């Protein structure tokens, strides 16, 4: 059985499961479409949240980033998990108690302002579209790298699948497909990690292998990696060249950004009540931690493996499909050399690896910037290669590789679907129902929701096609975090924890965060800014953290200078702080029941 067979098998099986779920979970009401009927079990929601959360960037790029950055990669590990503590303690239970469908719902009602709602919609759409471009690109990369399907067709196939379950089942369909996708991706991620950990350290748990000795040697794996790297002129793995404040700021932007991301927040609207939302955040972090504690182990193992198989290998010229690899390799072995590995030649086709024979000796020298023997680096691997090619680098069986393909696609599709829900509900619920046509009935809104989900899928696909021009997958995603941290987190947080916060303050805070962060990132990514111009030495990835404080400050000062919020709002905030006591409050809930209490649906937030 060859690798392509296994890839097609696993991808085919997982895709049929997604379509099966789509047919089973058709949504019958807006309640089901937006929030899966408020009736998802906390553990199930935790698993769906984990899949929703862990994107193509987490699955494909993160271990590779860590492999390259070493300690510097820690910002992703702490940032993308620590945000769940903020979510569980500061946001999720209160927003669930508030009891509606979307983040702009909360902003618009809490700040009694259509303008605030619209600004929140713009933030949510901006963040989601930035994020989804990376997902679609991930789908294209996985398809083109493994199944030999062109990048564009990969994206189109991915779009068709998501289109199916997102428009039919809405949040309900998305939730249950995400559960399956989580299982696929965690299996696909940990199986190769366990194999590799066992091969290198003899310990089957990658988390423990990470801090174990190299098998058969009396030296710790990380120490060996440090020595190997410094011998080749790289910095030590456990060190970084980033300033401490920059590391601090990036970690902060990722943590607060995680807590402010609309597609993560809305997942907590699908559980029964505030207590379930807290518990669900715990489950989500547990499922996420399974992957996130494995990633640094994969990163370190992959770097070690890459160096030992590629460095000082003799290169074989020509396209792998046209040459007789085994014959050429045998010749090199007879001459006493090590041939370039087969997987290297396989991946070379995708352009994710390149080799330039600078000193003309036909041998591949992999060197860092301070190479002790003075040789120039000749090998340039793309970071995404580390998870994709890892099973082959370690010489694992072909079925494991097939599994990784299915896992990568599951990671990208699950996140894309979660984001599509934010986009479609922002259009159909926040713009159409709550702003333009308040008289719209439930049935019409459901139809509009389906249509906007369909439109969003197409828009996302087009974005993915153009995203190939925008840096590597993880970097595109890092954008969204700064904007979520600086524009959405402050007003949601103040809306819950400070009753005095008013409409004027909220609008000022949101606009401050959005404009400053956007301008800063844009200037340094596209406008020609150089690192010497960084504000306080903070890179664009971390700036959301700095401007978050600016937004908080501007919001608080503006609120204090203008009139306090109406009594209705103060009572609303007091209600959502105490679980199970939420009542409708005049202007805060105009024309809209806070929850399903009044209708014949199951009681939602009031059910203790």
């Amino acid at each position: 059985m060859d690798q392509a067979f296994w890839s097609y098998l696993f991808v085919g099986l997982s895709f049929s499961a997604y379509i099966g779920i789509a047919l089973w979970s058709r949504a019958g009401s807006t309640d089901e479409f937006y929030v899966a009927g408020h009736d998802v079990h906390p553990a199930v929601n935790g698993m769906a949240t984990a899949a929703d959360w862990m994107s193509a960037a987490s699955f494909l790029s993160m271990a590779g980033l860590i492999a390259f950055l070493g300690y510097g990669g820690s910002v992703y590990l702490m940032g993308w998990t620590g945000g769940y503590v903020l979510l569980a303690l500061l946001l999720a239970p209160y927003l669930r108690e508030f009891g509606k469908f979307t983040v702009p719902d909360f902003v618009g009602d809490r700040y009694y302002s259509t303008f605030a709602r619209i600004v929140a919609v713009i933030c949510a759409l901006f963040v989601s579209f930035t994020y989804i471009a990376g997902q679609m690109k991930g789908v294209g990369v996985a398809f083109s790298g493994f199944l030999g399907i062109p990048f564009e067709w990969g994206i189109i196939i991915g779009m068709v699948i998501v289109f199916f379950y997102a428009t039919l089942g809405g949040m309900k369909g998305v939730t249950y497909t995400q559960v399956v996708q989580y299982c696929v991706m965690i299996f696909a991620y940990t199986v190769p990690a366990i194999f590799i950990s066992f091969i290198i350290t003899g310990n089957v748990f990658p988390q423990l292998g990470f801090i174990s000795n190299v098998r058969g040697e009396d030296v710790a794996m990380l120490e060996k990696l440090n020595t190997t790297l410094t011998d080749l002129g790289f910095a030590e793995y456990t060190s970084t060249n980033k300033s401490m404040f920059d590391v601090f700021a990036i970690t902060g932007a990722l943590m607060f950004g995680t807590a402010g991301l609309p597609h993560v927040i809305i997942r907590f609207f699908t559980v029964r009540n505030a207590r379930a939302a807290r518990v669900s955040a715990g489950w989500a972090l547990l499922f996420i931690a399974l992957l996130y504690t494995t990633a640094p182990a994969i990163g370190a193992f992959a770097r070690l493996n890459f160096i030992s198989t590629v460095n000082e290998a003799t290169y074989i010229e020509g396209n792998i499909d046209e040459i007789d690899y085994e014959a050429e390799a045998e010749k090199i072995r007879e001459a006493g050399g090590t041939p370039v590995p087969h997987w290297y030649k396989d991946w070379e086709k995708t352009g994710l690896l390149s080799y330039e024979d600078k000193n003309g000796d036909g041998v591949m020298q992999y060197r860092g910037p301070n190479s002790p023997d003075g040789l120039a680096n000749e090998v340039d691997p793309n970071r995404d290669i580390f998870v994709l090619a890892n099973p082959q680098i370690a010489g694992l069986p072909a079925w494991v590789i097939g599994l990784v393909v299915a896992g990568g696609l599951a990671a990208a599709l699950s996140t894309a679907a979660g984001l599509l829900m934010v986009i479609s509900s922002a259009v159909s619920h926040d713009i159409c129902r709550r702003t333009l046509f308040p008289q719209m009935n439930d049935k019409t809104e459901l139809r509009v929701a389906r249509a906007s989900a369909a439109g969003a899928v197409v828009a996302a696909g087009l974005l993915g096609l153009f995203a190939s021009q925008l840096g590597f997958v993880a970097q595109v995603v890092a954008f969204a975090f700064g904007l979520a941290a600086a524009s959405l987190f402050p007003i949601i947080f103040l809306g819950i924890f400070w009753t005095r916060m008013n409409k004027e303050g909220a609008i000022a805070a949101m606009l401050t965060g959005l404009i400053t962060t956007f301008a800063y990132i844009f200037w340094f990514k596209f406008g020609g800014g150089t690192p010497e111009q960084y504000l306080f030495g903070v890179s664009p990835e971390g700036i959301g953290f700095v401007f978050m404080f600016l937004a908080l400050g501007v919001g608080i000062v503006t609120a204090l200078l203008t009139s306090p919020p109406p009594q209705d709002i103060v009572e609303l905030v007091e209600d959502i702080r105490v679980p199970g006591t939420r009542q409708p409050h005049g202007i805060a809930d105009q024309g809209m029941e806070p929850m399903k209490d009044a209708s014949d649906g199951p009681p939602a937030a009031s059910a203790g």
Partner: protein
Amino acid sequence: MAGNKPQLTKDQAKAYWRATIRLTITLLVIWFAVSYGAGVLLRDILDKVSIGGAPLGFWFAQQGAIYVFLILIAYYCFAMTRLEKRFGLGE
């Protein structure tokens, strides 16, 4: 169902909220200490100690902080349920 909502007096609601805030702040201090503290600010000091070849600060940044985050949320759920019971909230 709307009639069955638990009702707290103003003072009870205030006391409940104060207790919630106290718990939240305590847990956030620990959250800060293990991530930004051990993983970033105090890394150079902690790195002098090593666990299994991993400098301790580095280990906290890549593994330890995540384990502590999990414990924090689990404890928060437990403590909040206890607090709700004390005030007669929830079932």
